[in-house]
């Protein structure tokens, strides 16, 4: 997989979540994702950006346009140096939240995207990487 272009955005407040969403939207439109898929990707980005802000105490997102021989996609990386997630399996369960959320962000983002990867270390931080692919046209 090759990264064709990338954009970095810090996530330090609620306005930044909107900026991340707008950047993501631009790339999904550029890649000609269907409206439904655009909505799914933007929603996943919104969930993960909010986690970075609320649970990770702020961090950044990297929005990448990635290519493979047969397909092209958008890859989103959300990174923070927050408290980390002690029990990843639990955090991925629908309805599990240590805050006052619905507990759907991680599981939901996983369902909405094609690839999902999460790394987390207690007291060091969390990195979530998600990708959605589309055929080259």
């Amino acid at each position, binding site marked *: 997989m090759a990264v064709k272009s990338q954009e970095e955005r810090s996530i330090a407040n609620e306005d930044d979540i909107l900026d991340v969403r707008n950047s993501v939207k631009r790339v999904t439109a550029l890649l000609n994702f269907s409206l439904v898929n655009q909505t799914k990707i933007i929603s996943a980005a*919104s*969930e993960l950006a909010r986690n970075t802000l609320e649970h990770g105490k702020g961090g950044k997102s990297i929005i990448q346009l990635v290519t493979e021989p047969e397909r092209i996609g958008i890859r989103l990386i959300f990174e923070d140096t927050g408290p980390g997630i002690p029990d990843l399996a639990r955090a991925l369960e629908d309805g599990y939240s240590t805050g006052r959320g619905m507990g*759907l962000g991680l599981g939901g983002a996983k369902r*909405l995207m094609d690839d999902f990867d999460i790394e987390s270390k207690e007291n060091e931080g969390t990195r979530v990487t998600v990708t959605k692919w589309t055929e080259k046209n």
Partner: protein
Amino acid sequence: MDRIPILKIGDVLLVTIQVDFHDRIAIALLEDLSEKIVDNSAKGVLIDISALEMVDSFMGRILGNISKTAKLLDCHCVLVGMQPAIAITITELGITLPGIYTALTAEDGMKLLTDMVKSKTNGKTSAKKQEAKWR
């Protein structure tokens, strides 16, 4: 501070959500709306989300809170104008919006509210009649 405007049409309050929900905007809306419901003895609230490009779990929770609060104030809440792509996405996300009534258009939403208010008033009168009979 940004605020979401609330319009009054007869017994109904109309809220059109165009801007992005922020925590503070959402809290302000909940407060403004609760006040207006009481001040106007509004029987219904129509929330138009046709301008939204997505609804995430944060917004879903806020919409749920608005609907619950309205209900406690004897007021029905109908959500209108959800884009099909959003309906598909929130279903996959797992957002269920329990207890929230929806209609496709603002017009349908108005009809639904009118019907709900009517049936409630009728229900109340018949309950009173029943009471009178038993006494």
